[in-house]
């Protein structure tokens, strides 16, 4: 736990991760970043935003943006099902919802179970992957959620500027 709070950049931390499924891959986010998990809500679309930016929702009186992680990772968009969840994470000082196929569990991943991200070749951005965790026989992609979402911001600014 100590290591998680230390917040050393680029270092892979052992600790508790919330795992979730996207397509047939399993991902993990540091549990400390997660505020809550909610079902699907009415989303208000905001115009002139990239397609992964689904819009905004009313989270008990707060208006927060929602991102479809499938679209963010350039995967095929899927019909939302009963299992579809919005994970509310805290990035910087703001809350952001991310839509995932389903949430699996909270798992402890020890440092000995974490491997560095292998180089996947050119064109595949692994910048926001902190590492790969091994849990039982599954491989879990550990996301640096700050990077995933702040990058999104940059892209959006660029996209708007390009218009």
């Amino acid at each position: 736990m100590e290591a998680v709070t230390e917040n050393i950049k680029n270092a892979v931390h052992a600790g508790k991760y919330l795992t979730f499924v996207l397509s047939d891959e399993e991902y993990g986010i540091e549990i400390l970043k997660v505020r809550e998990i909610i079902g699907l809500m009415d989303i208000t679309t905001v115009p002139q935003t990239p397609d992964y930016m689904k819009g905004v929702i009313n989270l008990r009186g707060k208006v927060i943006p929602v991102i479809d992680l499938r679209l963010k990772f350039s995967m095929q968009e899927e019909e939302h099902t009963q299992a579809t969840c919005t994970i509310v994470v805290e990035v910087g000082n703001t809350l952001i919802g991310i839509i995932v196929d389903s949430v699996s569990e909270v798992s402890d991943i020890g440092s000995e179970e974490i491997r560095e991200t292998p180089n996947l070749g050119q064109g595949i951005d692994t910048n926001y992957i902190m590492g790969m965790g091994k849990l039982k026989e599954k491989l879990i992609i550990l996301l640096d959620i700050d990077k995933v979402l702040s990058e999104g911001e940059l892209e959006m600014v660029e996209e708007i500027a390009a218009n």
Partner: protein
Amino acid sequence: MSNLNTEVQNTDTANDELTLDIKEDSEIFLEFLSEVLDHLDESESNILSIEDEVCDYEKINAIFRSIHSIKGSAGFLGLINMQRLSHELEALLDKARKGEITITQEIINISLNAIDALRKLRDNLSIKVDRELGNISDTEVSTQEQPINIQEFIDRITSILNGDTKPKEMVTESHNTGSVNVLSGHELQENTKQNPEIDNMEPSGDFWSDKLSEQSEKMFLGEILIDEGTITQEQLDKAIDEGNKKIGEILIEDGATTPEKIEKALNEQKPIGQILAEKGDISEPQLDNALKQQEKKVGEILVEKGIATPDKIDSALKTQQAQRSMKLQSRTVKVDTGKLDNLFDLVGELVIANTLICGEMKSVNNNSASKNLSQLTKITKDIQDQVMSMRMVTLKQTFQKMSRLVRDVSQHSGKNVKFHITGEETELDKNVIEEIADPLVHILRNSVDHGIESEEDRLAKGKPKEGSVTLSAFHRGGNIIIEIKDDGKGLQKERILKKAVDKGLVSKQTSMTDNQIYNLIFAPGLSTADKVTNISGRGVGMDVVRKNIEKLRGKVDVTSQEGVGSTFTIKLPLTLAIIDGIVVNVGDTKYIIPTVSIEESLQPKREEISTVKNQGEVVNIRGNLLSLVRLHKLYDINTTKTVPWESIVVVVEGADGKYGVLVDELLGQQQVVIKSLGDRFKNVKGISGSAILGDGKVGLILDVTGVKEAFVGHN
């Protein structure tokens, strides 16, 4: 801790050695930061008022106390630089309040500079704390700590302290602060601790015991009488001697306590009343009663001795009462704005839930239930109003900052300017207050630097040599008006017009009213300055001022008369948090158009719509041709209503004039609480924010100027 002072003075390049960990004791640091800021603001305004008016010892005392508190707390936290500087400033103030040195312009300047430096030190700490708590990242350039050389200030103060500035006639006037306090009875401890020696004081104690000594800030009866010239200091001292021990006696006479307890309490060197009340020996009312009797005694003694007449005592007592009640009124609780915002959001949800239930109950038709519901609605509304009003703050601090600014600018430009402030108690939403300071700074700088003429010019024109700038605030019709008025040379109509024509802002033929011409100064690229001075005219023009004010949904206007002066009028909404809006829908999406931007809405006839080059559309409204923005096309929304004469055209007015917006339907008028969409959507054109609508969904607020811009870009 007590040897810190000596240690501090010996080290030249002292670095802060924090005694506490910022992360672990973040609350102490945050409280310290906010307290220091309050102390500094208060001291600054007190110093400025000393400069303006006759030297008031109560004010110097207040400054001394503030600086002393800062020193104590800084010492406790190990902020050596802050402690050193406040120590020196405190030493200077101590001499001033004892009348050992005369308050000169130099002392006022160095005090203000020292306060600026303390403020910088505080800001640096604030950045450090923010960084430590992870509120800002290390890379943010805008929040770098600024280096401050406090030695420079310390040297200047030391040279004043060592100088042969002998006390002048002020000495005779000066009175002993300790003895005045004694009168209250609250402050018996001051009796034995007159003129507290700075160096003997424990710096650490003050941080928390501050609150206890607040009472001493009241003005006491004796002091008022001296101020009014009714009695002299000696007479007062004598009267005190006779009246002094009365509080114990009164209490014993009343049977409230025993002599032993009084004795013990006196030994403890705390305000006697306080100790007795704390121990539960006497009740608060008993204490108050006794204090009242004691106060009367002082007055009585004075009357008996023929020193003062009963009327004078009465009026002095009234003054005292008024001052006390003023202090009571300003008693406030500090609340973290985050908590307030949360409360805000929750109340908003409560209102929505209430609306939803009311809607459901309408179909049920139950008399008593609907009666109860309307009661609930009323209470909810009241809660909402109250919560809204909690964000309101007075303009006092902002205006005080302005007086410092005017002072600095006028000194810099060598002009003699008298600055008046009225309506500083006017309340505005906290967010508005934060944003309004910049435009005010700009306008005031301009008024002093460009508006007010030099002394010779003024005399030549037959004006008083002292220029005057007035800053006032007041309510008018649901808005707050802030007015900046100067009696300077006024705006030069011809020059502005010529410049505007040169810049191609207006054509030569356009006929304009005087006011329209004056308001051209808010156009980009039009500076009225003859020359660029080091104070103003550096390219940041009045257009920025107008932009900032419009961001606050306000308006700015200028009127002027050449040779007589100019008046800037800023009109602001009371709060930024709520707007009146019309809810419209396009397909499934709901938008809110602010009512202030709407001119009218109508269903156009087929013949009123025409296309230009088969692309652009215009709508003819009573002869006026307005371009038509199809919201569904612009924002790519699916809707079945694509034929203008089956939909609604809302005529809105943006910064670039009027145009029509095509929407499906009008859903009704609603007051909505504005929620920011956050940084992620700041580049979305045409959307200024969002609001939660009656059904719990989020609606987007249209910014009509932005919609037009997006539309023009879109085409």
